[in-house]
Structures are given as C-alpha cells and as structure tokens.
C-alpha cells in the first residue's frame, strides 16, 4: 500500500465505528463469558464458576428453553423455507395483480412485532376469538390456541410465519428472477410440464436464495423474544419459554449472572448450529 493510499484510506476512518462497535457490542459479548460465571449486581460480583450453567441445565423451568427454542427455530424456519418458495414461484409466474399480491405478502414484515402479537392473541382467544368463531360456524370446535401447553408454541410459530414469510419470499423472488429465462424455454420446447420446470430448474437454481432464507430464519428463530413476549410471555407454565425470554425473566428477577449465562448459551448454540449449517449449505452450493 502506497503512502497516498494509506492517507486516502486512513485507518482513522474506522475509529468512530470501531469505538462504538467495540464498546457496545464486542466488549459486552466478551465480558459475558466472565460475568456468566459470577453472581453479580451491576457493581459487585463474586466468582462462582460454572454454577449458573449447571443451574441452566438442571432446573426444569430453564432447561425447557433449549427444547422449545430448537422446536421453534426448526418449525418457523422449515415453514418459511417451503411456504416462501411456493409463494415466490407463484408470484413470479404469469398471474394477474402480481404487484398487489407481492405487496400483500411482504407488508406484515414491516409491522411492529408487538402489534402483530396483540392482534393475533385476540383473534386466537379460545371462546370469543375470530378464528374459533369461524371454526365453530363450520362445526369444528377450535382449540385454545395460546392456552394449550402442547399447542401454544406452534401457534406462536404460526404468527411468526405469517409475519416473516414475506422477507423470505422476496429473497426467493430475487433468486428466481436471476434464473436465465432460456432454461425454461428449453424445457417448454422439450414438452416439460410446469411441475418439471419447478423441480428441475427453479428448485436447484434458487439454491443460493434458499440458503440465505434457511440461515436467516433459523438464526431469527433461535433469537426470538418479542413475539413470545407479546403473546404468551412464556406461558402457559413454561411451555413457550424460549432462551431469550428466559434471559429476560432472569434479568427481571435480578439474577444477572444467570441471565448472562443464558446469553452465552444462546451465543454458543447459534455458533455451534449456524456456522456449520452455513458452511454445509455453501459447500453444497459449490458442488452445484
């Protein structure tokens, strides 16, 4: 690097970003490793080793968070990956009102999660809610969507998909639009059906888009907090408690060390699950 380049691209330019990013993101992240092994108020701490982690794995009300978070992430991610692909295929085909439908699918992404959570928790009310009233009208007794311990997590996951499928869809749409049109024409000349063009062209060639969707929605699912908090607050019981909501509950109760241990577990969990997934998906991409 020449002297003029050193001046033009001065490292001082990285300083404002560096200071803020370091102080308010990197430093707390690194310090969390230490604080997770303490019992502390914001000013004083006592080192207690791995006790917080031990508690996280032993206490049922905390341990349930791992299972719930994993189920939630897999369900929301899986549904988004499949639904968004179908929607994107539909919304790139020759249909009328394409722009309107695209806007419709995308718009919920921009709404506040809390607002969406409030609206759906009223609509999912067991007796008066719009959903169960509609079901009752056609003779189906609707369940208690958010009050049933077996169902609640999936109901929240459904709301998450309603809100988040739009972003996954536009990523797919961008991927599908970049597939050269002559592949489809070649298949049509050979007399291939619409299903074949989806299966043999759209699906394999939108792989990069699919990888982005998988990674984004899986990590998003693992980190979810606000939707849970706006709908069930972890209840009934602990049946919808995710790691992020447990962290908040422990923080509120004043167990800062325990809350921080939860953060570290989430951090390690995401690294252990998401980084290999990312590598795996990208490797597959290269082989194609």
């Amino acid at each position: 690097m020449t002297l003029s380049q050193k001046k033009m691209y001065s490292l001082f330019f990285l300083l404002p970003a560096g200071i803020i990013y370091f102080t308010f993101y990197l430093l707390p992240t690194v310090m969390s490793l230490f604080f997770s092994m303490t019992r502390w108020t914001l000013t004083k701490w006592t080192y207690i080793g791995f006790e917080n982690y031990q508690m996280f794995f032993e206490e049922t009300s905390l341990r349930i968070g791992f299972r719930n978070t994993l189920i939630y992430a897999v369900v929301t991610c899986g549904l988004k990956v499949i639904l968004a692909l179908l929607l994107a295929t539909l919304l790139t085909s020759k249909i009328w009102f394409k722009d309107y439908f695209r806007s419709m699918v995308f718009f919920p992404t921009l709404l506040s999660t809390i607002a969406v959570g409030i609206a759906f928790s009223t609509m999912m009310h067991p007796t008066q809610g719009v959903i169960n009233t509609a079901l009752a009208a056609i003779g189906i007794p609707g369940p208690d969507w958010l009050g049933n311990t077996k169902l609640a997590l999936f109901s929240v996951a459904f709301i998450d998909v309603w809100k988040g499928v739009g972003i996954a869809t536009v990523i797919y749409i961008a991927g599908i639009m970049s597939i050269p049109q002559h592949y489809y024409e070649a298949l049509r000349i050979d007399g291939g059906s619409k299903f074949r063009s989806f299966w043999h062209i759209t699906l394999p060639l939108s792989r990069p888009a699919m990888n982005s969707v998988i990674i984004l929605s899986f990590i998003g699912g693992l980190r979810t907090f606000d939707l849970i908090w706006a709908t069930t607050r972890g209840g009934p019981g602990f049946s919808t408690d995710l790691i992020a909501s447990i962290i908040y509950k422990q923080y509120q109760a004043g167990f800062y060390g325990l809350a921080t241990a939860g953060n570290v577990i989430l951090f390690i969990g995401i690294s252990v699950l998401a980084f290999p997934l990312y590598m795996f998906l990208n490797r597959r991409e290269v082989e194609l």
Partner: protein
Amino acid sequence: MNTVVRDSTANTAVRKSSATAITGKVLVTLVLLVLSTVIFWIPFYFVIINSFKSGAAAADMTMAWPTAFHIIDNYAAVLSASEHMLIRAFYNSTLLTVLSLAGLIFVSSLAGFVLQRRERTRGAATLNFFILAGLMIPPAVVPTIWVLNSLNLFKTLAGLTLVEIALHFPFCAILYKAFTASVPRDIDESAFMDGCGGFKLFTHIIFPLLKPVTSTIIIITSVNIFNDFVNPLYFLPGAENATVQLTLYNFMSMYLTNWNLLFADVVLISLPPLVMFLFFNKRIIAGMTAGAVKG
C-alpha cells in the same frame, strides 16, 4: 383446400387452449384474492374496526360492523392517556430513529469505504469476521447494561442510540462495503492528485456516490429501529421516556379491558411503517434482498 381446413382447425385449437388458459388464470386469481383477503386483510380489518368501537363492543372481539363509531373519542383517549404518554413516545421514537440513523450512516459509510479499499491488506479478514459475527450473534444484554451503567448512559436516549448504532452497524457496513466496490478506484486517485486528501475525498467525492445505499439504509433501518422492542425494553425502561413499542406493551396491562384503545394504539403505531411502505415499496424490497444475500 385441404390446407385451409387444417389451418382453421389449428386456429380453433389455439383459441380453445387460450380460453382454458384464461379460465385457469381467472380461477387462480380468484383463489389468491380470497386467500389473501382471509390471511392478510382480515387481521388488518379486525384491528382497525375494533379501534372504532366502544369499549364494551370491542370486548366482544368480533368482526361485526360497529353499531356506533367512537373514532375520535378512542384516538383522543389513547393520545392523552397517562399524561400524553403516546405523544411523548412518538417524539422519543422519532428522535431515537433520527439520531441512530445519522450516527449509523456516518460511521458505517466511512468504515465500509475503508474496509473495501483495504480488502486485500493484513487484518482485513479479522475485521470482516467480527462484522459477520455481529450479524449472527445476539448481544449480551446484561453486560451491555453494565457498560452503559459504567458510562452513566443506562436509561438514557443517548445510551440506547449508541446501542442501536452498534447493533445495526454490521448490516450497514456490509451494504456500504459491497456498494463501494462499484466505485472505481481511479476516482480516488485523481481526486487525491487534485489535492482532495483523506477525509475530504470521502465527504466530497465518495459519499455522494454512495447515495443509493444511503437511501436504502435510511428506509430499512428506520423501520427496524422504530419497530424495535427488545432494546428499549432493556436499555430504556420506565414509562417516562418510553418509545412507541413500549407504550403498546404498557397499555397491554393498563387496557386489559379496553381493547378498543389498545387497538387504536396498534393502528397509530403501524402508520409510520405503512407510510414508508406506500412510498418506498420497491426500495425496501430491493434493500432487504440485497442485505440478506450479501450478509
């Protein structure tokens, strides 16, 4: 003679198949219209119509048309509740969004520019790794509070602004970096020759060229920060300086029986993103896609 007959049969065949194609298209469109109405319009309608009803009528949680409209009463009540908490919250959220955006654009455009130009130098890979990590790994909340507290920034708008900048920095820096790659280095060289050194080169020549990303970032990040619930909940607690998302949360317990008011709040809070969407629909979609693919 023979050919003419064949032609006309071919024509009918074409007409027939295009007729079935159109019927198919009409059917698909109808199905989609019904589905999109049920899945998307009903929730919107439900919230809006119930924000117009009286408290008792809204408590029924039905989609029925209101017998009496209380539009002005309800919205006035929400706006003046708890000493105009919502109006103050709108002010706080706007201030938070504007300040965070200004900071973000300043730090991440500079950083994105230098990172792209120094891409092949020593240490660049490490910096990239830290930025990518920021996209994936959630922030450690209590240690962040500890940092804010030691700097006397906990429970202040300034503190929350700095946290928002730090947390949105990776996304913005990656967008800026990707876009800087399309600005030729020759421009830097010639501007430098003309005596436009260092910072001036950036502010006068490069930054104006980055305008498309800047506007994408403004649109997307402003919606995200305005809608942010988690960070204000942790770093700016207390009703006094609540942001709009927190008012919703506070009203949830306060208005447990007044669904009409809660829904009025939901409607008011959803207006700013709606306006953004109406004006910048294409831009938002393009920006979110770019961010996702680059990230």
